[in-house]
């Protein structure tokens, strides 16, 4: 018998974090992720954890930095404008080689934007989550169940490689209720390195530890960045996740992630019923990006269609991954608007007409 419960995405994210050993949460209210913090506020005191509402997003991420320095699993969550505020602390955490989990339940932008679901933070999440050369391990779940299973994965990758991880969700996933099986999500466990670098008091038993991102000599700074990029290379080698649907015989391959991929799957079924051969590559990790899967798809596919809830932020990644071997079209809605499966189908038909 399965142990499925019906849960809101934001609450499931919080519960999954607790079940993965994270009992320290620091946040600040912002729609559409607030239920996550509210859930933590209810649950964490009961498991001897700490849920602290900070005075700002800036303070919250720095509290996470302090907690992570102590060697514990810690997390924060926010939505787009709040993530911009956190970018300072995120960069310092990268520079200090500190693992943590950051959830971005995206809303529309720029500026205060709106509170409806969007994927307008793709470039920020995958290319520039702060100043300096840096990456985060970024995963984009497409269902509440997957969100739950990616929480454990994100923490494990963060701890293994000493990098911050980000769950890039959106307002739709955060707010929707779906059945979740937490036991199924806890399946695979990996050996994690001991946090010998933690600043939790040397107790006279070891040399002092320093958590720091300052290297005033440029040669030392370069060395530290190069060492970090060796870890990034390992992440790119070992931690890529993606899902393929009917790619083998597809003339048109859609590339979409998160909630958008589900709309695309409906459109693909409709197109297949019309005899149009369409498939889907769904990046689950947005960084590292599933380049090899797309390069392979480019061997047989005739055309790529990127579908996102933004103005085409992932298009260049698809062009680079496929080495521009095939045309790459884009279809998206932005500002919190969602396309229908029929809208996507219309794009598929247009491209299909062009191929013939």
């Amino acid at each position: 018998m399965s142990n499925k419960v019906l849960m809101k995405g934001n609450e499931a994210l919080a519960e999954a974090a607790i079940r993965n050993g994270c009992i320290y949460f620091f946040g600040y209210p912002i729609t559409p992720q607030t239920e996550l913090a509210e859930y933590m506020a209810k649950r964490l005191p009961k498991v001897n954890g700490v849920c602290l509402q900070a005075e700002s997003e800036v303070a919250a991420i720095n509290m996470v930095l302090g907690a992570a320095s102590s060697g514990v699993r810690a997390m924060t969550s926010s939505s787009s404008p709040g993530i911009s505020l956190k970018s300072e602390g995120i960069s310092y955490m990268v520079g200090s080689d500190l693992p943590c989990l950051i959830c971005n339940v995206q809303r529309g932008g720029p500026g205060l934007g709106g509170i409806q679901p969007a994927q307008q933070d793709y470039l920020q999440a995958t290319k520039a989550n702060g100043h300096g050369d840096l990456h985060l391990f970024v995963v984009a779940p497409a269902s509440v169940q997957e969100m739950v299973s990616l929480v454990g994965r994100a923490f494990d990758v963060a701890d293994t490689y000493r990098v911050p991880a980000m769950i890039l969700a959106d307002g739709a996933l955060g707010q929707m209720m779906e059945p979740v099986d937490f036991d199924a999500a806890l399946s695979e466990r990996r050996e994690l390195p001991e946090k010998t670098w933690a600043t939790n008091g040397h107790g006279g038993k070891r040399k002092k530890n320093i958590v720091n991102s300052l290297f005033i000599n440029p040669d030392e700074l370069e060395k530290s960045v190069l060492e970090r990029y060796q870890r990034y290379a390992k992440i790119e080698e070992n931690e890529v996740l993606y899902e393929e649907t009917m790619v083998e015989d597809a003339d048109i391959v859609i590339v979409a992630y998160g909630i958008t991929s589900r709309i695309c799957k409906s459109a693909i079924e409709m197109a297949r019923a019309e005899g149009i051969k369409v498939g889907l590559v769904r990046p689950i990790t947005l960084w590292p990006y599933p380049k090899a899967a797309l390069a392979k798809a480019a061997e047989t596919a005739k055309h790529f269609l990127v579908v996102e809830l933004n103005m085409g932020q992932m298009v260049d990644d698809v062009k680079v991954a496929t080495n521009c071997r095939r045309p790459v079209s884009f279809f998206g809605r932005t500002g919190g608007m969602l396309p229908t499966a029929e809208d996507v189908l219309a794009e598929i038909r247009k491209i299909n007409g062009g191929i013939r």
Partner: protein
Amino acid sequence: MAVVFDKPHALSPVPFHYCPGCTHGIVHRLVAEAIDSLGIEGDTIGIAPVGCSVFAYNYFECDMIEAAHGRAPAVATGVKRTNPDKIVFTYQGDGDLAAIGTAETVHAVTRGENITIIFINNAIYGMTGGQMAPTTLPGQVTTTSPYGRNPIVQGNPIRVCEMLSTLDGLAFAQRVAVDTPAHVNQAKKAIEKAFKNQIEKKGLSIVEVLSTCPTNWGMTPGDALQWMRDNMMPYYPLGVYKDVDAK
């Protein structure tokens, strides 16, 4: 043979980078002496700021974290909340604590975080080369107030101990100076008390140390001390601003 003077164990055996006549060295020593006398080096985590004391993580023998500019009290909160039995202190300058980090400071205090803050007030930004600080005095010349700080244009200085002592979470606030042996002894006692309060879980303690910056004030170390006495002490009076122990 009895040892009458020695370097505190909690102070690292490395040369400081501070300018001649700078008072950071004295305050570092006082912090290390407090850590030694309370026997807490192995349980202490220090948070260094951004500013002249940015390298403080190299100067103390306890575990250290280098925070972003102004964020030390938030970082300290994260450390303390996950390690309530460890001793956590921040060491911050006036720009760090009272300008870019005002929100972090005020809210750490009002939450009553059980930490210790050592606050260096020298009325100027030292590391970047002598710009106006939140504590720069009216009329004081800096590179960004070249005609003297005009409160109408550049606003007024902040009196940190006075401001924080209105908040309920504060356990102890004292403003001290390190310009004379008598004042150094007073500062030593205040700093030790600020750490002892934390061991006794009394809440947040802050010690503000009036300091000099001969380099950026453009004075000899001796003249700088006299300038501090003549100008800073009247505006920032020494004394205890809050003490939960006082009846």
